[in-house]
């Protein structure tokens, strides 16, 4: 079943009289619109209103109406002029078709509180109820079309990172800035979308790899620090294609890895193996987390605390469900997950090598391995 049919069916069976979806990620999902800019304009809300019996309608600022109609698979639009109050007025006009006392599902985990209050004020006979759980469940399992796209993107991202790593010579004194850009260019060459500030690459080496974001707030630009022999280098990238995301991080050592570097990497390999073993259809994701955390403890790996050990990927590069202690969702066929435990390296580096997997009927299948990542990429001394 393709996405539009899946959504029609879900809305019909939802128990809501209408859905009003405002989060940029939820909008992209429901309207089929790759529109990366809308997240950056919270004062100009865009939404899809989907009546239980009726066609969906996109609500957009007048200046974006034609653009969003072109990008979206939903072709019916209602434009408004002005900010949030005008948006609410436009939504209220469309909601007049919902019977008195009707229930309108809204994504409360995206909708600003002030907008909700305005909606309640303008449509006092309607009940606005959270539909976040429904959206979370829908988004967690991908359709065939979504799956094909995500698989392609996962491969392109891995190819992009690996392609850039190929250019590195231990003695070439390449800078982090240059490597960041090479990752980006290779992802672009692979065919991924360049979407301004949304798409990010980063290379962090040696002491900089001990930070999540070296040189804040110059995020994803890279530092002028040169890569030095013997260092661990973390290469990260996240890019999209037609609104669907891939995210990756791959590790490289400057020369053959030391025993300590290899040991840290083998922790990551073991945690990946444990995740692959535990990610069986029907397993609770909270239990997958526990299995991985317990493996880390058994091996003496320094697992960085406070983080989920993986997450979903789709119209956002980090989305539900999470491989986290508190996650109640169960693994099911069609789920795309990124396995992403982070361990401390021998010199305090934050190390992760993220792997995208799809859950098939029998279990997980790793996607996008352009190289066998049971070993880090080892930069050479000569070409």
């Amino acid at each position, binding site marked *: 079943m393709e996405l539009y049919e899946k959504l029609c069916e879900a809305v019909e069976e939802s128990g809501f009289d209408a859905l009003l979806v405002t989060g940029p990620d939820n909008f992209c999902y429901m309207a089929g619109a790759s529109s990366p800019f809308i997240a950056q304009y919270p004062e100009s809300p865009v939404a899809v209103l989907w009546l239980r019996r009726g066609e969906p309608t996109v609500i957009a600022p007048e200046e974006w109406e034609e653009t969003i109609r072109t*990008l979206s698979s939903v072709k019916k639009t209602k434009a408004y002029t002005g900010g949030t109050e005008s948006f609410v007025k436009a939504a209220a006009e469309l909601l007049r078709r919902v019977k008195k006392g009707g229930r309108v599902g809204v994504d409360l985990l995206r909708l600003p*509180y002030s907008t*909700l209050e305005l909606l309640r004020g303008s449509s006092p006979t309607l009940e606005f109820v*959270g539909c976040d759980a429904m959206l979370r469940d829908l988004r967690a399992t991908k359709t065939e079309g979504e799956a094909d796209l995500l698989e392609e993107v996962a491969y392109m991202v891995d190819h992009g990172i690996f392609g850039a790593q190929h250019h590195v010579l231990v003695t070439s004194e390449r800078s982090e800035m240059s490597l960041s850009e090479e990752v980006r260019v290779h992802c672009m060459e692979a065919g991924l979308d360049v979407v301004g*500030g949304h798409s990010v690459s980063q290379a962090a080496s040696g002491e900089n790899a001990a930070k999540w974001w070296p040189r804040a707030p110059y995020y994803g630009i890279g530092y002028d620090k040169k890569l030095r022999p013997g260092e661990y280098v973390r290469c990260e990238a996240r890019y999209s294609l037609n609104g669907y995301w891939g995210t990756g991080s791959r590790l490289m050592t400057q020369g053959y890895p030391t025993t300590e570097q290899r040991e840290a990497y083998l922790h990551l390999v073991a945690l990946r193996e444990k995740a692959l073993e535990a990610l069986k259809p029907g397993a609770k994701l909270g239990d997958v987390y526990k299995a991985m955390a317990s493996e880390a403890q058994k091996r003496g790996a320094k697992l960085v605390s*406070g983080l*989920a050990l993986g997450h979903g990927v789709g119209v*956002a590069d980090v989305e539900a469900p999470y491989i986290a*202690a508190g996650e109640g969702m169960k693994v099911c066929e069609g789920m795309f997950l990124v396995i992403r435990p982070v361990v401390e390296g021998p010199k305090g580096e934050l190390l992760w090598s993220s792997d995208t997997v799809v859950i098939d009927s029998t279990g997980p299948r790793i996607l996008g391995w352009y190289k066998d990542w049971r070993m880090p990429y080892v930069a050479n001394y000569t070409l």
Partner: protein
Amino acid sequence: MEETRFRRLVEESGCDALLTFGADNFRYMTGATLPFPDDYPEKRAVSITPADEGDTCAVVAPPDWAQAIRDQGWLEPIEAYNENDGPYPSDVVKTLTKTLRGMGLSGAKLGFDAARTHAGLLEALRSTLEEAKLLPVDDWLTSARALKRPDEIALIENSCEYADRGIIHGLNHLEGTLWGPGYTLPEFAERIRVHVFEDGASGVGHLAVTMGDDTQLEYTPVRGDVEEEQLLRCDVTSHSMGYWSANSRMAYTGEAPAELEDSYYENQALKAYAVDLLEPGARCDKIYTQVRGEAEKMGMRLHGPIIGHGVGCSHFEAPYLTDGYPFELKVGNVIALGVATLGPRREIIVDRDIYEITPQKPRKLSWYRSWDRLYEVTGFRAVH
């Protein structure tokens, strides 16, 4: 000095403390720019600023953002929440509640930015912090942010320079490449982004590069090759240490046809008319209606119902030059003026500049280069 100012502002809002959930408001209150917050709706950094100067401020943040906040000079406590207490918003709310209790604010009057706070997060917070009174203070925050200090204006001015240099350098790279070896549009867009960074910016937000018929739209996925005899529009928003500019520039790959040049000149004339209206005391809605009226007189049509907006900790913020917005401009407002008109084939023609409102004439902050005519890509090169 800075801290005292913020404390006083919180006190003026009538609250015991202010919580900000929006990344732009977080930047305003803490000085720290967050890493790509728009892309992570289920991650939140929250600033807590008590009105009383004797009380410590604090930040609650995701574990992988805390270091970035600390590295930008935040000296007060940072409480990293645990993602395993989730899913969102339980993870944020658990640590936020604990932190507020620890600060003695559990029964306090807490102002918050309701236009940036997810309703579901607020509901969860109210259920764990029943005794607190949570009050929206968006109007107060918006007013405070709209009036820029000299240091804020300096950062915006830097950002304008970086953006304009990035665009012109990207265009320079196009020279001599049109018929061979050829450039792809993504490559050109990427050149702009990289040059904006190389020139000193700390981040790029919205980047739309449209060509030919696509210039009729605000954004299209960047695909295909740069072709000869085409109109190009580059819309770039970028920041310098969290202070944003929003620039749009136009070019033509070849010698622009007369009808397009005429459209551009007419747009420039209308823009000049609008610039003259940017003075303290002028009402935003009236500026808009005057410009719309002038456009009609000149036989032009505006694209969209807004011709300008503020920039600061966001690339799109108050005040807005649009109908129904009666705000009076004040000294210290900074406006991105983008008078968009339609060209001969309904192309969106816009040359967006940034102006500081001063007691005299508006001061142009995006002064790096004059864009009073279409940039024509007609050059050649041997090697580049």
